[in-house]
Each structure stands twice: as structure tokens, then as C-alpha cells.
């Protein structure tokens, strides 16, 4: 199945570079040692490879011209945003041209009559939220990495903390402008709310990790901004107790925007990392829930029921975070968990997603693994949507043993997730490093179908080759 990657790609020569220089000028083309080392890797993928050229583009047309040229000459191309991915999807493992889209960072239009926002792919997630708020509008997807680009979010179908109530990035993409590997420009979807017009190409592009086309513009769906949000921080004596409460909350039909779980060790790591105290760190485990609505009274009514459920399930208390300062104190720590854990040691991450009533079983299993294999495993994540982030930490392990143990832990975790009807990735994607697990779970028929879709878009396999399904 991986055979199509064995083809020979053309190495960039002076003529190719001259083409790029002619198109973009010398300030926007980098080759050889001019390329910043950052472009050789992402944030966690564990693989690195320098592209032969990095180009900064500023329009759909430029992207199309580069793609057309690359297609004609069989040069691999990798699109890239902020490089905040975690699975190596934006690494140019076959060299070639890397297209940096971060300068295409304009917010083009807010359409208050259709509740849509049209953006270029390099706009950062944090800018979108701030921008639409001025219009009392709301872009719900809320991945932890706020400096990611919207293009990257679309390409990984990023999820985030509000998925419990609002869904994921794919649910907020209405239309896309895409440059195909051949260099042709395609308009997909648009400002329309409904769309039964043939195969949903838009949904194929969302989550395709830059393998099917390059997104150069997106129309996003917006919602009216909820006026009030209150978070509850709920301490429990054990993690098991905390997580076992989640299905009961979901069953109660209250819909929090987020249900996160966290353990004391991670909170303390975040306190040290940020040099800032969390409002409470006396309990072993916590649930963090958020409710939103249009008035304080509405939201209080909504959380009352859930607070009672938590107390009945053995919560030590329920703390209320109802003002900007209080929310900041809680959520800034939550937002720093990954960085805080990463700052202490090398690690690798498992981003499985399991049905929501299996979260407790999975987390307990990782605790068992930790004891069995004698290495630290930390987890926190989205208890409300079943997407777990389990971090396996290297600490003092020698390289060889670390690799061996890591492999063993991951094999066990993915096997368990299959057993529980889960899937390989909830929101970080497959990229390069999680391919094996996807192949194992899906089997040949499924993977062949994916590969054929890839070839329908990219017959010469030049766009981000070697990723996801190959």
C-alpha cells in the first residue's frame, strides 16, 4: 500500500529555484542554510527533515502557480501553518517545497446576515475569537493551542474543549477555497447552510492533514455569542471517582460546553511552569466543567443540577468560577498543561478517543500500565467527549529502553482503545507518526479506499506524501 511513495521525486535544481524567485521575489524564498531549523519539525512528532525550499505565499494564485509547477515537475510540496502539530503532518519527509501560509493572515469578511466569517488560512485561532466577539458573535471550536492557524485547525479537524456542546472544527466550516495538487483552484461549499450537492468534498478536506489540497480561504460558521459562562472546578478524592461521575452528568441531559479532568500532579506542574497558583490543589483529581447561556440566572439553573450530581457522587466540594479573573486563574493553568508536562521531560502522546462511558476504564488501564512498565504516565483531557490525552514520560530512561517501552505502551493503549470501540486520534490527527496504528485498526479495505481518495485528488502523489494513509 505504501508503494506509491517509493516513486522518485525530482530534487530542486537551480531552474526550479529560479522559478520560485521569479514568482515570489528573493525575500519570500528560502533555500539551504537560509531555512530556519523550525521548518524541519513540528511540536511533538519526533521526526525531522529539512525541506529543500521554504516559500512564503500571499495569495491563492501564487499557491496555484507553485502547485502547477510542482505537479508538472514531480516535486513534493508540503503546506504549513504555525507548525504546532503533534504528529509530524507538516514535516517535509520527502524534501521538496514547503509552502508557509502564515502570511495569508487576513480576516476578509464578517457577514452578519449569514453569520459567517471569511478568513485566509494563516489567521490564528486566538485572533478569530477576539475579532468576532466585537460583533457579539462566537466561533466555538476551542483547541488548547491558540497560536495554531485556522488552516491547520481545518486540516486536522481540531476539536478542543467545547466539543461536548458545540462540536469540532468540521462543524464550523461552510466553504473552502482549495488549490488542488494539479494547481487547479476549486471553490467548495460556501455561505449556504444546507448542502446535499454531491459528495461532501469539504468534509474530506477537513482533517486531510494537507494531503488532498491546500486550503487558501475558508468560510466559517458563527453563532451568537453566549453572554455568560461559568466554570465549576470539582475536587474528588480519586480520579476514578471523578471520571465515573461524567456519564452521570451526561445522562442528566445538562449540556456543559466542556468537561475536562485533571490530576493534582499536572496542576502542580502547571503552577511551577506558570509561576502562578491554581485556586485549589488539595485534592487528587478534579473535573472542570463550563456552562454557558444568556444570563447568570440561566447558567446557575443549568449548573445547579450538575453540582448536586457531583456532590452525590462524592465530590469534596464544587468551586464556582464566575468572573473573568477566576476563569483566567483556572483556565490559564488548564491551557498550560501540555507545555508544563513537556518542560519536565521528553514525552510522547496518545490522543485516542473512546465512547464517553468508557473513559474511566481507559484511564484506569493507563494507570495499570504505568505500574506494570515502571514509567510515568500522565493524562488529562476531555472527559466529556471521550478524547483522552495520555502522555508517556521518558524521565531518566536510556534512549533504547525508552523506545522499547514506548512502543510497548502505545501498542497496549491502542489495542485497549480498539477493544473499547475507540479510534486512534480524537483531534491531533495521524500525520506521519500514528500511521501504523491507523493501518492496524482500519485494515486493508478501509485503507485502500482512503488511498484511492488520495490518488483521485493527487494522481502523482506530490502533496504531503507519506502521510495519513500511505
Amino acid at each position: 500500500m505504501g508503494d506509491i511513495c517509493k516513486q522518485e521525486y525530482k530534487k530542486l535544481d537551480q531552474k526550479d529555484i529560479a522559478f520560485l524567485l521569479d514568482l515570489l521575489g528573493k525575500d519570500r524564498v528560502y533555500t539551504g542554510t537560509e531555512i530556519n531549523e523550525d521548518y524541519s519539525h513540528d511540536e511533538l512528532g519526533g521526526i525531522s527533515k529539512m525541506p529543500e525550499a521554504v516559500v512564503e505565499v500571499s495569495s491563492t494564485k501564487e499557491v496555484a502557480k507553485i502547485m502547477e509547477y510542482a505537479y508538472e515537475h514531480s516535486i513534493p510540496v508540503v503546506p504549513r501553518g504555525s507548525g504546532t502539530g503533534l504528529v509530524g503532518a507538516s514535516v517535509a519527509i520527502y524534501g521538496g517545497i514547503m509552502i508557509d501560509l502564515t502570511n495569508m493572515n487576513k480576516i476578509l469578511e464578517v457577514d452578519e446576515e449569514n453569520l459567517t466569517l471569511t478568513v485566509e488560512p494563516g489567521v490564528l485561532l486566538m485572533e478569530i475569537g477576539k475579532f468576532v466577539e466585537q460583533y457579539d458573535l462566537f466561533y466555538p471550536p476551542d483547541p488548547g493551542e491558540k497560536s495554531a492557524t485556522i488552516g491547520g485547525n481545518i486540516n486536522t479537524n481540531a476539536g478542543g474543549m467545547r466539543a461536548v456542546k458545540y462540536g469540532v472544527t468540521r462543524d464550523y466550516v461552510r466553504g473552502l477555497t482549495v488549490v488542488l495538487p494539479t494547481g487547479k483552484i476549486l471553490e467548495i461549499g460556501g455561505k449556504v447552510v444546507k448542502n446535499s450537492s454531491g459528495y461532501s468534498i469539504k468534509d474530506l478536506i477537513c482533517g486531510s492533514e494537507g494531503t488532498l489540497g491546500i486550503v487558501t480561504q475558508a468560510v466559517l460558521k458563527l453563532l451568537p455569542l453566549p453572554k455568560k459562562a461559568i466554570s465549576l472546578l470539582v475536587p474528588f478524592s480519586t480520579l476514578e471517582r471523578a471520571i465515573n461521575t461524567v456519564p452521570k452528568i451526561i445522562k442528566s441531559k445538562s449540556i456543559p460546553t466542556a468537561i475536562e479532568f485533571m490530576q493534582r500532579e499536572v496542576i502542580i506542574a502547571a503552577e511551577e511552569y506558570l509561576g502562578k497558583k491554581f485556586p485549589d490543589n488539595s485534592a487528587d483529581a478534579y473535573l472542570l466543567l463550563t456552562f454557558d447561556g444568556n444570563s447568570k440566572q440561566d447558567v446557575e439553573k443549568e449548573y445547579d443540577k450538575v453540582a448536586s450530581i457531583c456532590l452525590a457522587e462524592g465530590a469534596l466540594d464544587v468551586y464556582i468560577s464566575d468572573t473573568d479573573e477566576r476563569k483566567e486563574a483556572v483556565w490559564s493553568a488548564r491551557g498550560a498543561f501540555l507545555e508544563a508536562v513537556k518542560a519536565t521531560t521528553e514525552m510522547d502522546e496518545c490522543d485516542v478517543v473512546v465512547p464517553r462511558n468508557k473513559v474511566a476504564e481507559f484511564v484506569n488501564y493507563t494507570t495499570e500500565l504505568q505500574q506494570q512498565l515502571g514509567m510515568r504516565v500522565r493524562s488529562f483531557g476531555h472527559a466529556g467527549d471521550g478524547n483522552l490525552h495520555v502522555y508517556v514520560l521518558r524521565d531518566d530512561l536510556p534512549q533504547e529502553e525508552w523506545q522499547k517501552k514506548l512502543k510497548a505502551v502505545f501498542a497496549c493503549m491502542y489495542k485497549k482503545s480498539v477493544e473499547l470501540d475507540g479510534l486512534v486520534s480524537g483531534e491531533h490527527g495521524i500525520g506521519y507518526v500514528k500511521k501504523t496504528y491507523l493501518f492496524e485498526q482500519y485494515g486493508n479495505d478501509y485503507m485502500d479506499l482512503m488511498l484511492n481518495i488520495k490518488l483521485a485528488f493527487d494522481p502523482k502523489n506530490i502533496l504531503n506524501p507519506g502521510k495519513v494513509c500511505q
Partner: protein
Amino acid sequence: MEILVCVKQVPETSKVEVDPVTGVLKRDGVDSKMNPYDLYALETALRIKEEVGGTVKVISMGPPQAAEVIKEAYMMGADAGVLLSDRKFAGSDVLATAYTLSQGVRKMGNIDLILCGKQTTDGDTAQVGPEMAEYLAMPHIANVIKIEKIKDASLIVEMDMPHMVEVAEIQCPCLLTVEKDIYQPRLPSYKKKLSTKDWDISMFSLHDFADQNEKNYGLNGSPTQVERIFPPAVNIDKEIWTGAGVELADKLTSKLKELKFV
């Protein structure tokens, strides 16, 4: 230790608009909250109580709905609360507010330590605490960043001076205003919300005070007369100069003189 914490109800957002015609704050639809700086004072009080025992009371001044912040203080662990509320207190400036609070404190009896936030987010004067202490003839220290030691009849504290940190010992009873981040304030507890639901809030009005002279309260007792409240004009003019530091400094001085800023 008997501790009293001053708390104030303020608009939830700092972006309250001013009606450009009437100069009145547009408070409609704006929720209220406890002044964020007061949370640090309350947290400090609760930590001192946890360390040496005693009680934590809170006092606030405002319209009847300001009772909400006292309830919130109960949810954080305060033991009792007083609200000073009387139409005759309306329109108080910092001095009249400090005087009214001092009358309330006298009425409450034995207090070893009064804690205030360093300022409020709506008035921003940072004067009420120290003025109140003067009325009560108490020693006081502002901008405390650390409680170093709690002794039987005194406290050793660190205060933030502009260019240094000063360590001082202060005799009780005394008043301290504490800086942001002295401790991370705890969150209100839902359990306490349920258990303190029916707790009383003592209400004091002018009739409860030793000094009942109306002229000392509210608008009458306020030397500050607000002439006009208006949103500041937004100035987007800008000039950018480049050049050497000395030359630019001269240029800047003459420009500021020209604009009559200096």
C-alpha cells in the same frame, strides 16, 4: 484574631459605557461582582484565620443589592457580614465613604485587623483604606505584598514601595491594604453556598451610628463635587520621530510645552 475585610460591589466589566449626553454610567444589563482586589484581602484574612484562629467578618457599603457580595464572602468562608445601606449615604466620595465605613467599624466593636484590597476597579483611588484608618486612629500600611509573621499583638509585613520592599512591624489593631497576588484567592464553594443560604446579613443605617449628623454623609459629607463624567476623547493622531536620544528628548520637551502638557 478578629479580622474585618472591606468589600465592594463593582460592575462586572471594566468596559462600562458613559452616556455622552447625561454623563451617567450605563449600568443596565451589566452584572456586578466583588471588586477583584478585595478577593486578595479576603483570602489573606482567611489564611490568617486558618493559621491563628479567630473570625473573619466582612463589611460593605452600598445599595441593598450589595448584599450579594457579602453572600459571596460567606461562600468563600467569612463568618459574618455587615452592609451599611442608607439613601443618605448616596453620592459619597472617598472621604465620606471612609468616614461611613469607620462609623460602621466602631459599631462592630472589637477588631484586631482590618484588611482592604489596594483599590477598586471602578473608583481606582486606593484611598478609602488609609482614610478609614485615620478616622479610626489606627496605624495602617498600604500595598502589603506579604504577611511575614503574625505575633500576639502585632504583624510583620512586607510593603511594596516604588523602588524597594520595606519590612515593617505594625501594632494591632491596624489596617492593611493588600496587593494583588499576595495569595491566590480561593473560589466560592457551592457547598458553602448551600450551608450559608439562610445566614443573616446585618444591615446598618445612619440611625445605628454614633455620629448621626447627616451633613457628614453622602453627597453632603463629600468635599469632592463631580462636575461632569464623560468618556475620554479618542485621540488617534500620532507623529513618529527618529533620531538620536538627546535630540529627540529636546524635541519631545518642546512639543509637550507647545501642547501645554508641561
